[in-house]
């Protein structure tokens, strides 16, 4: 997928003017956060669980090599195969090779953000293989040729009318005058179409919410059951996962599951939580003949031990998106690539380069709500600041803001000089603004006054008045 992260400001303006999108974002802003709060209120030990979840992930990251090798061994013992992919290109070729070896023409997929990250659909299509997304939201954006706009609700930016329009355009096999007014009708139509794909598919590809090292098990959660059909009907099951998804034990997986759904959708647990271990065994009634796990690095190991180390704890619940004032204002597409919201603003620069994603860490008020709701307590604001520091030190911040900041800091570091400069400035503005108490327009303050008045200063600085008060005392 072509990244448009460089056009963040333009994307954001477009998003702010898109009334359908704004309606969708208003629904999301009031939906998920409220459900999350209710779910947490029902679980008194939630804060302790967050600590436990954080500690599990920290432990894994300290011993990542050990748990990954153990996972590989266990998968092998169960008759599956692990493939290591350093980057997106390697992952794409491994997956294509498995598909070609299986003589695949159709590949069903359950939603995978890593799949989006490596743009596997485009690669399969370019090689004559048809990928079919089976998560309803992901299917909708696939037929519209859009990237997901949310980690767990990829089509959250759309209204049902827009979906109906896309279905009418894409599904020529149904009568043109059918009614798609009701959500149920949309669901039924998607189900009819997808059912055929499930039966046709030679390969099923899923992501993974967790990889369990002690058993070689892959954990996938959905609310639609589509991952189960994706992994059990075709002859071959390919799992694509980034390597920080590994956890030591099934107990650890259970702990993470307890914070995952509550944080994301406010559910106690997702409707489907599937543990799959290896291919079909003799005597099993169903399941794939072959089981492959593609483990993707794609820059993640460079984060280990560095400033962004803790970002690798992320379990992709989406809570930081749901609560972020910026995400709620502009939606996921404005961020211009696969990941959005605070977690995307931290991760995207790692994956595509800060020089291509410079706006992302800056487009934040650092309000701290993301860290507040993160189930694994990732200090996202600190990481956004880290990127800003890298930009500042690498001279990537805009010249205007750099020189402006330097000039201001020059004064701020010299209190006596600062007093000489700010006193007259405040006096002039105070005099000019006294009659109305505020300014509608002011030279050099267009960023502020475009949408709000600037309250006028009183006219004297506190420190000047304080000096006067001290002098007046006996």
């Amino acid at each position, binding site marked *: 997928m072509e990244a448009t992260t460089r056009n963040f400001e333009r994307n954001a303006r477009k998003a702010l003017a898109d009334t359908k999108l704004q309606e969708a974002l208003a629904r999301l802003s009031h939906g998920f956060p409220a459900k999350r709060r209710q779910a947490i209120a029902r679980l008194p030990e939630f804060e302790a669980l967050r600590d436990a979840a954080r500690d599990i992930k920290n432990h894994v990251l300290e011993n990542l090599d050990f748990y990954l090798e153990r996972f590989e061994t266990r998968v092998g013992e169960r008759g599956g195969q692990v493939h290591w992919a350093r980057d997106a290109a390697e992952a794409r070729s491994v997956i294509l090779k498995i598909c070609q070896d299986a003589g695949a023409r159709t590949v069903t997929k359950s939603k995978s953000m890593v799949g989006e990250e490596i743009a596997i659909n485009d690669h399969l299509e370019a090689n004559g293989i048809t990928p079919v997304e089976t998560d309803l939201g992901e299917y909708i954006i696939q037929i519209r040729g859009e990237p997901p706009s949310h980690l767990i609700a990829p089509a959250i930016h759309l209204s049902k009318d827009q979906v109906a329009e896309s279905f009418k355009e894409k599904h020529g096999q149904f009568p043109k005058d059918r009614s798609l007014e009701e959500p149920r009708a949309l669901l039924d139509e998607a189900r009819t179409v997808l059912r055929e794909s499930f039966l046709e598919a030679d390969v099923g590809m899923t992501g993974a919410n967790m990889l369990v090292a002690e058993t070689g098990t892959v954990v996938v959660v959905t609310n639609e059951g589509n991952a189960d059909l994706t992994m059990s009907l075709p002859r071959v099951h390919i799992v694509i996962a980034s390597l920080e998804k590994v956890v030591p034990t099934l107990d650890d997986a259970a702990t993470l599951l307890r914070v995952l759904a509550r944080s994301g959708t406010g559910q106690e647990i997702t409707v489907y939580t599937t543990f799959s271990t290896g291919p079909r065994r003799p005597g099993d009634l169903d399941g794939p003949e072959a089981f492959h796990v593609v483990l993707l690095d794609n820059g993640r190991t460079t984060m280990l031990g560095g400033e962004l180390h803790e970002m690798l704890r992320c379990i992709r619940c989406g809570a930081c998106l749901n609560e972020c004032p910026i995400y709620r204002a*502009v939606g996921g597409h404005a961020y211009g690539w696969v990941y959005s919201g605070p977690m995307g603003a931290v991760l995207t620069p790692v994956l595509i380069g800060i020089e291509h994603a410079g706006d992302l860490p800056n487009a934040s008020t650092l*309000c701290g*709500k993301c860290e507040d709701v993160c189930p694994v307590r990732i200090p996202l604001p600190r990481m956004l600041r880290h990127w800003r*520091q890298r930009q500042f*030190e690498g001279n990537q911040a805009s010249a205007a803001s750099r020189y402006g900041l*330097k000039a201001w800091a020059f004064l*701020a570091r010299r209190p006596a000089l600062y007093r000489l400069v700010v006193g007259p400035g405040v006096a002039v503005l105070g005099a000019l603004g006294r009659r109305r108490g505020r300014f509608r327009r002011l030279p050099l303050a267009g960023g502020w006054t475009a949408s709000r*008045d600037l309250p006028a200063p009183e006219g004297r600085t506190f420190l000047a*008045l304080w000096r006067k008060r001290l002098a007046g005392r006996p």
Partner: protein
Amino acid sequence: MSPPPPNVGLFVTCLVDLMRPAVGFAAVKLLEDAGCVVSVPAAQTCCGQPAYNAGDQADARAIARQVIVAFEGFDYVVVPSGSCAGMIRVHFPGLFAGDAPMAGRARALGERTFELTQFLRDVLQVPDVEAEYRGCATYHDGCAGLREMGVKEQPRQLLAAVRGLELKEGEEAETCCGFGGLFCVKYPDISERIVDGKVDDVLATGADTLLGGELGCLLNVAGRLKRRGSGVRVRHVAEVLAGMTDGPPIGDP
């Protein structure tokens, strides 16, 4: 014999200093009424947040050093802003990661640094204040005060003692107002959308006054309220608690 009165250094903040000295005098009155000896070191300009949040660590560090030197002689540092207090307490120590003695001094100062209402309630345990305000107010929780400093109940407890004042909570009281320092001028369109949400929430409460403990937020929300033609009065919480509301509200003549 009673213990000596606490020796408080007031970190007035650059915005209060430049835009609204009345907040500084209200803070002084509240502290003196509570028995503190208040000093205002002349060598203060800003806490360094603009530099720190823009990634300019070198300048942030230099400014932090200046603040530490100017204030470490006091029993307490009190700040009429949650974000500047948070800068000193939460962020200063990290700026001196490679300099153990300075980091220690930063931590020591941070432990004695408080947001104004937090200091009055949690440290001095002021039970109530002698003030009157005719009106119905809603309170905006500044993000850093709320999440970095734990300021939530303290201003409300103090406001509860103000005669004539009714407090109505906005549903989104804890939601960011879209100020974010330089954010609001760097991304004015997004900031406008966010502050509109805040304004809608304030108006939905039916309150005639918006109070808060963070002047940056208040300038932002007042500016948007005025632009939208609203008559809601905006004030720093210290003004109301100190009974110093004779001057015009923020953005009014």
